[in-house]
């Protein structure tokens, strides 16, 4: 890289001014290509982060101007029971939806990875949850899980369950529903990715295993899983980043309740900053999550670029 910036002429001859000027013009036009996009990224990604860090050391409630509080916001956090709870809930949600979502996607991808008539059509339909917004998804499930008229409890009653649970009104089951919806979306998203990974596994490996008399389960365990391991790790990371920022589904289904059992990180931040007007505190809360998510994202980029042969 550095060599590029050194002018290419022989130092013993004097540089031709015309060529120098031409080179400069050359670079200027190159910079013009990246300038617009980079201005956008600077303005809306880099500056906001600096501003966020600055805000996190101030106490700021509109309409009065920000007041410096040093680490006040950060010590506040340690006393904020809801903050601790929201982090805990987010971790539970992330772990739950990730485990179900990934194992579900692998299972379905294995099922899809064969030649059958009409298999493409199944694949096309399986992807639908991914392109439907979280808001719409949440609305549909709110209706499915509705206490009085929800279809699910009707089916349960027909199946002989005396008193089906009021799903969204009890802490444990409310979180379970959120996890299932996250897993539903996650599975749909990951199926094509795993399918592509499965199709890249050399068939000769399976043939050799069959000759050795390995059954289907053994083949999966010793051939399939190791072959898709790097994709699995990549999907795990993506899943963590996505789940950690869950908010729309929570807003519509439970609004953080019952008894704060589904209060999640982003919702907590949003509430503090925009509903209770503690802007500086909201900024500090955002900033505390940053290192964690940055680390996960960095890991993801590392993994996805490391695969390029």
């Amino acid at each position, binding site marked *: 890289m550095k060599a*590029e910036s050194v002018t290419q002429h022989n130092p013993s001859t004097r540089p031709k001014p015309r060529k120098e000027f031409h080179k400069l013009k050359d670079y200027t036009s190159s910079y013009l290509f990246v300038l617009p996009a980079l201005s956008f990224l600077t303005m809306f990604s*880099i500056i906001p982060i600096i501003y*966020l860090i600055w805000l996190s050391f101030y106490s700021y409630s509109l309409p009065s101007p920000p007041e410096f509080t040093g680490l006040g916001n950060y010590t506040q956090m340690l006393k904020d029971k809801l903050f601790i709870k929201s982090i805990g809930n987010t971790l539970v949600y992330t772990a739950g939806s990730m485990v179900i979502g990934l194992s579900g996607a692998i299972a379905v991808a294995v099922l899809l990875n064969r030649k059958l008539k009409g298999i493409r059509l199944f694949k096309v339909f399986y992807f639908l949850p991914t392109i439907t917004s979280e808001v719409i998804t949440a609305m549909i499930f709110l209706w499915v899980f509705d206490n009085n008229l929800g279809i699910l409890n*009707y089916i349960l009653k027909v199946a002989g369950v005396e008193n089906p649970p009021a799903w969204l009104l009890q802490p444990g089951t409310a979180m379970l529903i959120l996890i299932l919806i996250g897993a539903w979306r996650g599975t749909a998203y990951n199926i094509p990715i795993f*399918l592509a990974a499965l199709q890249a596994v050399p068939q000769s490996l399976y043939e050799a295993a069959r000759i050795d008399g390995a059954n289907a389960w053994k083949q999966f365990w010793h051939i399939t899983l190791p072959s898709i391991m790097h994709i699995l790790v990549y999907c795990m990371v993506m899943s963590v980043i996505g789940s950690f920022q869950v908010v729309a589904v929570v807003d519509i289904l439970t609004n953080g309740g019952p008894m704060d059992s589904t209060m999640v990180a982003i919702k907590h931040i949003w509430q503090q900053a925009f509903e209770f007007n503690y802007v500086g505190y909201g900024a500090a809360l955002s900033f505390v999550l940053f290192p964690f998510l940055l680390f996960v994202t960095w890991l993801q980029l590392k993994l996805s670029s490391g695969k390029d042969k």
Partner: protein
Amino acid sequence: MKKQKIIKNFIFYFLLSLVLFVFLGPYIWMVMTAVKSQGEVMMWPPKILPAEFYWENFLRIWQETNLPRAFFNSFIVSLIATIINVFLASLAAFAFARLKFPGRDKLFLVVLATMMIPTGLMVVPLFFMMKNIPFAGPDGWLDSYTGLILPFAVTGFAIFLMRQNFLAIPKELDEQATIDGCSKFQIYWKIILPLNKPVIALVAIFSFLTHWNEYLWPLTIARSQEMYTIQIALKAFQGQYNIDWPLVMAGATTAALPMIILYFILQPLFEQGLGGLGSGGKEL
């Protein structure tokens, strides 16, 4: 032997249909609820098919609610953001992939770094930046198309994805074009863009879809009903009519339909794109 195969296939189709039911069931239930009258929804036991198709709900969506306006807003926001992203990100990707200039790789690292920023954590500072933007009145860009569109228009991911694809084009083409007297912009416009239609289309679809489905940012800066995007309007609407399930489901159906239609029309593109995303976009 043949009989065994038939049984085996039957089991596979059964399992595939079971999964299909899990993914499609909720949608079917949404549509079936949307075409019932409220009276029928209240009836017990529930029936899958309505006694007679009741289209009134969709009419009410268009006449009584602010969803049409929100639809229009979402369309404008998604479209303009997509155009900005495709154009500016492809220009930058072209420079990063095909040109040499001092600091190129450092600048690309900056682009990669912006990809790592979780959007959910940016909402607080961005809101106050939009509010205090100079020369834009007391509320800045709050409650405006500008504020809805600009902050998340250009994505590092789009630059990254396009650069990956632009790199795969042989360098000789550029050299030949330069000899023929083409400028850099002409190379970009006449050679690189036409040869990379699939990835450009993919970036366009994903930009559009992301903005159409976006929730947190419009929720934060759309203050008045006139500026609600479809997702925010739906949420407000659901709170307002929460006992009128057929109407709510008709609203959800109306909002979901454009993307579902788009998905089916552009099916091959989606298929190409998604398999590649998991492998860093190499096989797009």
